[in-house]
């Protein structure tokens, strides 16, 4: 071999080595980037998560992180987009568009190696641990159900098919837009009537925030209009003093709050509502029905609290009805507020416990987490309720720790904190 040939040979060898190296290195490099890509890690089992809301996404992501990719995670979600309920009352007030609150599911899949199935669950066989969907089936070692809520129309059956005329708008989406359009079309001097179902329901302060957001819009654009709030509860269920003061100070004479009013009958055509005490006719009517755990919980038979909510352990969020099935989020039976932040907290305690159990270790016997919930009372001002919750080893439930409470008054500063809350929780849940 002369010098020139040898040099060429070395050069080619290096080149070949390089490109071979690059080819073989590429997948592991990508794995390192993705952090938790499942191909290179030995899998010890599969967790299926039903539901891609705040709770389901958080559980999926954190199981991948805390198991260092060794637990396979599949999410089954029927919608192709995530629409945030938090901040959706601002669509009614006019300071947000529904499109500001809508996101894709791509990043959480890519970043954490979560397997995504866009489909709808039809049956869950808890004995063979098999889930059937409209377009396929899948089996699980552990199942996490994060089904959100279903509306109960059994006491007002004529409303189920009248959701175009009388939307609940209690799941953010086109109904929120519909309700906003009805408010835009309402003449000045019109009456907006809404109800509050008897607790527990999704987002305790949400209905009162809604009344405030509608008042914010009407005060600016249709100041002769009125709002009637028919509350099935004996009093405002969350931030009572603050909302009462807001309605007096910011929207004087506009919000007519009527407690102990359970809706008995609704005439869809005339938008007339009858309660046990009175009859009111609305220009725009918003009925928020009572709620229960979403359909997947019903399919699995884990809705064992009055056939409505799901009883769970607050250490693992495992169902008390069916082993190896965990339930998180608004669907559970608890004293905890049904809020998005709370759903993510439950999801992480559940995720951590599932990882520990699958590694044959003991989950944290006394979890602690914090809840911060903001309500907007105008386009810029908000107020909080914030509490740390601790597991009580005697009562076996989460109880409020000392120091929790609400704002002294709503403020623009807290409005900015509330926007920051949304930015941070969306980033944590969706990426």
């Amino acid at each position, binding site marked *: 071999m002369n010098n020139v040939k040898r040099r060429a040979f070395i050069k080619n060898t290096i080149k070949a080595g390089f490109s071979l190296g690059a080819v073989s290195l590429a997948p592991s490099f990508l794995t390192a980037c993705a952090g938790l890509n499942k191909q290179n890690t030995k899998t010890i089992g599969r967790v299926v998560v039903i539901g891609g809301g705040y709770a389901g996404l958080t559980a999926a992501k954190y199981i991948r992180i805390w198991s260092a990719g060794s637990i396979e995670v599949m999410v089954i979600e029927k919608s192709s987009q995530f629409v945030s309920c938090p901040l959706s009352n601002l669509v009614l007030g006019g300071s947000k568009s529904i499109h500001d609150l809508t996101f894709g599911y791509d990043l959480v899949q890519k970043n954490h190696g979560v397997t995504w199935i866009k489909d709808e669950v039809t049956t869950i066989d808890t004995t063979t641990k098999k889930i059937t969907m409209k377009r396929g089936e899948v089996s699980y070692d552990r199942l996490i159900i994060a089904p959100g809520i279903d509306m109960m129309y059994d006491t007002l059956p004529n409303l189920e098919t009248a959701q175009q005329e009388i939307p609940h708008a209690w799941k953010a989406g086109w109904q929120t837009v519909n309700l906003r359009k009805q408010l835009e079309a309402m003449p000045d001097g019109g009456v907006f009537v809404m109800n509050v179902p008897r607790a527990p329901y999704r987002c305790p302060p949400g209905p009162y925030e809604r009344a405030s957001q509608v008042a914010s819009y009407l005060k600016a654009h249709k100041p002769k209009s009125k709002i009637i709030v028919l509350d099935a509860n004996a009093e405002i269920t969350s931030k009572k003093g603050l909302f009462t003061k807001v309605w007096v100070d910011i929207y004087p004479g506009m919000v007519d709050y009527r407690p102990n009013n359970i809706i008995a009958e609704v005439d869809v055509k005339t938008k007339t509502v009858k309660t046990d005490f009175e009859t009111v006719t609305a220009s725009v009517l918003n009925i928020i029905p009572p709620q229960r755990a979403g359909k997947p919980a019903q399919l699995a038979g884990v809705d064992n609290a009055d056939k409505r909510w799901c009883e769970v352990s607050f250490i693992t969020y495992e169902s008390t009805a069916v082993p190896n099935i965990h339930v998180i989020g608004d669907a559970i039976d608890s004293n905890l507020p049904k809020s998005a932040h709370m759903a993510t907290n439950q999801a992480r305690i559940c995720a951590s416990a599932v990882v520990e159990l699958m590694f044959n270790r003991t989950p*944290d016997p006394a979890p602690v987490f*914090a809840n911060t919930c903001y309500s907007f009372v105008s386009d810029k001002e908000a107020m909080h309720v914030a509490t740390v919750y601790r597991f009580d080893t005697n009562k076996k439930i989460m109880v409020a720790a000392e120091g929790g409470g609400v704002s002294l008054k709503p403020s623009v500063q807290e409005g900015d904190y509330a926007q920051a809350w949304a930015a941070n929780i969306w980033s944590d849940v969706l*990426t």
Partner: protein
Amino acid sequence: MMKYSIFISLSVITFIISVAHAAEVVSSTETFSNTPHIRTLAASCAACHGSNGNALHGNAVLAGMDGDKFTAAMVAFKDGSRPATVMHRHAKGLNVDEINLLAEYFSKQKRVPSQVPQPQTLKSSHEQR
């Protein structure tokens, strides 16, 4: 030649000691703050302070924060000596051990910019119920 090998073995020993020391530091982190109790409690802060404390929107970045600074702030929120809009509610609900372990946990987190998911147009096919 003899001198060189002594030098080499010394540096090897120093290297081994420093690796062992690093390993010890890492394992103490595993033992104290990287437990299910603290990692879930720390993650509970994400709603306002971002994933692993990498906050967006101008909120306090806890990732990589000096542990003493974190503890001092939380203790001051807890005893009321530092005014707050929201943080006193959380600080009062935690015990001093949890505050110290959270301080250690967040001090070990890398500062990396949190990703911002991009809003998109709601599809007409999105379920209405």
